[in-house]
């Protein structure tokens, strides 16, 4: 019986491979001695060919199933994912993030329009007729915010409160940015929705506070973190639009393949935006409400805007050697 001979001849090796894989699964690659790796590679290749033979000779579920399982597990050890390194982290901010943003600049423009136009419209409308704000934003929130700005920021508000607000901004704003991106998969509609809604809300609330007479207090609060926060929301919206438009017009690829090709730069932008929102939350929690002079706040806020814009325009312009691979493929199509 061929099956009997086949199995009894090979079983020892399969068992050995099975044990090796179990060891590889539970250890870090660096701690595995070389001879074990050599043996693994050899035995894995043999098991592959054994599986092919077992299939072609129809040796049955037991042998085929067993070999299938070993090969599947071995395959995973054979092609492990690369672990992230600190170099990757540095290159992310030096090159990949600003480059990826420049690569989708038209989407950034579109997202900025979707966000800033509603802000302007809502602001103009509410300035002309302040009561309109009560129909846009929740009245309790409006009253609470107006009250807060009426008090001004003289002397700050204490560390505990600052931390509370920072936590709130991280949880709320980064969550919004992620949703703004993710819902872009519905052909961009979700991103547009989040941009519009947040634009209208922000514009209405801001204009309402200003029309109540607290313009300086409000603007000096917002200008500090605005550079990071507003830009990051626009960026995640832009990535959502990119994602949506990719599904509308995948170019020469099938839709899923187009996604596969462009996934990495999109993730780069979304994670970069999340990092920016994290910075924004720190500023918004600890600097914006501080008791500093409004003039100083305006100067620093303006400097941050210049910094952010310069970062995206200038950083990572000259790709270094070895940068041509990876996410740059995303430019085609």
């Amino acid at each position, binding site marked *: 019986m061929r099956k009997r001979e086949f199995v009894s001849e090979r079983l020892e090796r399969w068992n050995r491979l099975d044990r090796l894989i179990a060891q590889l699964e539970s250890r870090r690659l660096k701690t595995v001695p070389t001879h074990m790796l050599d043996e693994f590679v050899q035995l894995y290749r043999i098991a592959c060919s054994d599986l092919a033979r077992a299939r072609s000779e129809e040796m049955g579920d037991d042998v085929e199933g067993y070999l299938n399982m070993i090969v599947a597990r071995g*395959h995973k050890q054979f092609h492990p994912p690369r672990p992230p390194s600190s170099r990757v982290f540095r290159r992310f901010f030096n090159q990949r993030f600003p480059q990826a943003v420049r690569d989708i600049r038209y989407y950034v423009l579109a997202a900025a329009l979707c966000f800033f136009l509603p802000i302007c419209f809502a602001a103009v409308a509410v300035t002309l007729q302040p009561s309109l704000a009560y129909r846009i934003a929740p009245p309790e929130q409006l009253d609470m915010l107006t009250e807060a700005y009426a008090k001004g920021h003289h002397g700050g508000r204490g560390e505990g409160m600052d931390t509370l607000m920072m936590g709130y901004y991280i949880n709320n704003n980064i969550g919004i940015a992620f*949703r703004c991106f993710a819902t872009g998969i519905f052909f961009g509609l979700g991103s547009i929705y989040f941009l519009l809604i947040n634009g209208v809300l922000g514009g209405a609330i801001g204009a309402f506070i200003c029309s109540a007479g607290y313009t300086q207090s409000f603007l000096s609060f917002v200008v500090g973190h605005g550079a990071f926060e507003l830009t990051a929301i626009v960026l995640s919206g832009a990535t959502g639009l990119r994602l949506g438009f990719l599904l509308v017009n995948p170019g020469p690829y099938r839709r899923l393949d187009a996604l596969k090709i462009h996934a990495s730069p999109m993730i780069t932008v979304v994670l970069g935006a999340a990092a920016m929102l994290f910075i924004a939350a720190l500023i918004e929690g600890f600097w914006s409400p501080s008791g500093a002079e409004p003039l100083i706040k305006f100067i620093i806020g303006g400097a941050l805007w210049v910094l952010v814009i310069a970062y995206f325009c200038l950083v990572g312009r000259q790709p270094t050697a070895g940068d041509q691979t990876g996410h740059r493929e995303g430019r085609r199509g």
Partner: protein
Amino acid sequence: MTTAADKSESPPLVHSHVSVETPEQIQFTFELAGTSVRMVAYLIDFVIRFFGTLVIGILIFSLTGFASPEFGYGLVMVVMFAAEWGYYTLFEWLLKGATPGKRMMGLRVVRTDGVPVDVVRSVLRNLLRAADIFPMAYGTGILVMFFTGTSRRLGDLAADTMVIREEPVRLRELPKLPHEAIELPQGLLREVRFRERDLQLVDGFFRRYHLFSPDRAQELAEILAGPILERLGRKKGDAIGVLAGILLAENELRTSWYGRMSAISRPPPPVGNAR
């Protein structure tokens, strides 16, 4: 326009297996995880996230003291954020594609080419939970899982991943044999090389035995055992017993392998069975 030919080629509505071809040009198959088992894994993760946040929150408050509760609340909100958006990616990275819930259910995220997920894909598939969860209770995700037929939600499609069941291979026990098995002469076993396909047919016959009426079972057994019966010079009434004998003789051999195949991969131990 669809033609009959198109239809015959269209895949079945729900795949439970996908095959992956390796660079060694070998195909192997994965069993896809279905919607329900993934829901259970999700619920387990949900409970872990909930209590994890709770415990860390209590720790934060007891360390910072209740003097400045705002400070504690601020940190708790950061933890909540991490639990919502970071939990899955963190564990899929640490546990090579599994979260605690997935691990308990024997599931794992892999790329569609069978390799474990990398961080970028893990981030993408977990960010897109925000889309899959829309409008509520993963409505979109579940619909997409049904319509793609491969049990992949939007996040999986975008990240080119899939969730597989990683149960160790199950070596099946011998089915219950209803009759006294008739021992076959050794010479015959050596002479006749039973094809695996035929043995599986016999195996399947006994697995479904309880579904047949006695007459029908006898009828089928006669068809299956026909040539052997003739050779042994047995009556047709012995058909079922002879089939049982074939399976038993085969099984002796298999039990000896199974014990060793199961050494590491812990399938249920084959039971010597049940006459």
